[in-house]
């Protein structure tokens, strides 16, 4: 009896290393297939050849690629990460398109020199991005919580970028002699930008994801 685990390991080496469970499953399939051919009274040589045809070079590579893709897509990446990044990419694409169309944010000036460029049109379009994240998450088997997080993911990225900029500015103040860090200005500015770009963005995105959730719930109930 051929050692099917060894054959799969030799013929599909990448899959065997990256996804041993898949390799074991395929070895079991080949073993059953081979025995099926023997039961159908094929000679051992022909049975072996027919069985090996299932993982000949092109088919084997194609199988490895597709199974690894499925493996990578499992878990967080497929339910939150990928949908969230795609929602973020869509949000950035919209911002870029609005910029090309010369639709500028409305700048709000506050006391103490603080200002906030408020991208009203972009915020109005963001629910579509939130819905996109939720749709992809749902398609990838995401739970309701996953779908909401995926929808709001662009806001998480914006939050992170703002916090990063804040601390980068603070760090630079230690390095640059002619640059002073003013906590009294920096903290309110951060709070303002977080409200404008973080919280409002999150609300707009979650609104889109929530509307989609309701629509899908109704469509499931009517089926």
């Amino acid at each position: 009896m051929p050692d099917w685990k060894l054959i799969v390991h030799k013929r599909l080496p990448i899959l065997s290393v990256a996804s041993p469970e898949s390799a074991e499953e395929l070895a079991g399939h080949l073993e059953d297939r081979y025995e099926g051919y023997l039961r159908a009274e094929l000679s051992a040589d022909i049975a072996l050849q027919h069985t090996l045809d299932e993982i000949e070079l092109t088919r084997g590579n194609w199988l490895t690629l597709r199974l690894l893709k499925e493996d990578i897509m499992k878990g967080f990446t497929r339910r939150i990460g990928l949908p969230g990044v795609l929602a973020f990419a869509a949000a950035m694409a919209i911002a870029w398109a609005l910029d090309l169309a010369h639709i500028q944010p409305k700048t709000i000036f506050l006391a103490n020199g603080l200002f906030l460029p408020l991208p009203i049109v972009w915020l109005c379009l963001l629910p579509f991005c939130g819905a996109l994240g939720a749709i992809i998450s749902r398609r990838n088997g995401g739970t309701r919580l996953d779908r909401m997080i995926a929808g709001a993911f662009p806001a998480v990225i914006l939050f992170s970028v703002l916090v990063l900029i804040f601390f980068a500015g603070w760090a630079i103040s230690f390095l640059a002699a002619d640059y002073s860090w003013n906590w009294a200005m920096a903290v309110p500015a951060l709070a303002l930008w977080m409200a404008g770009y973080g919280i409002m963005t999150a609300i707009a995105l979650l609104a889109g994801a929530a509307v989609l959730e309701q629509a899908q719930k109704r469509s499931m109930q009517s089926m």
Partner: protein
Amino acid sequence: MASIGAQIKRGSAELAVLTLLARTPLHGYEIAKQIEEQSGGVLRFDMASLYPMLYGFERRSWVKAEWETLANGRRRRCYRLTPLGRKQLAPLRAQWRDFFRAFQSLTGFQDA
């Protein structure tokens, strides 16, 4: 036309696998074997099309896969249809029934 053909092929394969799993949990080789036997050899699955589809079902939570040890001591990964998968099967069956009825009426085939 090629894309319609691919969609039909993919859709029919999904329907075939989900229908079998709705009856009983099976492992990959059994699925391929039963489809081949029950379709009189017309439908055949090779590993390159079957396993990515099963993994895709698992990713969408339509099936749950668990390792089982058979009577002969071999380990096989057994696929079981989940309630979500069962929910997906009903509209899929309805779509295919409508498709075949429409096709029968269009072509006059009685056995389509």
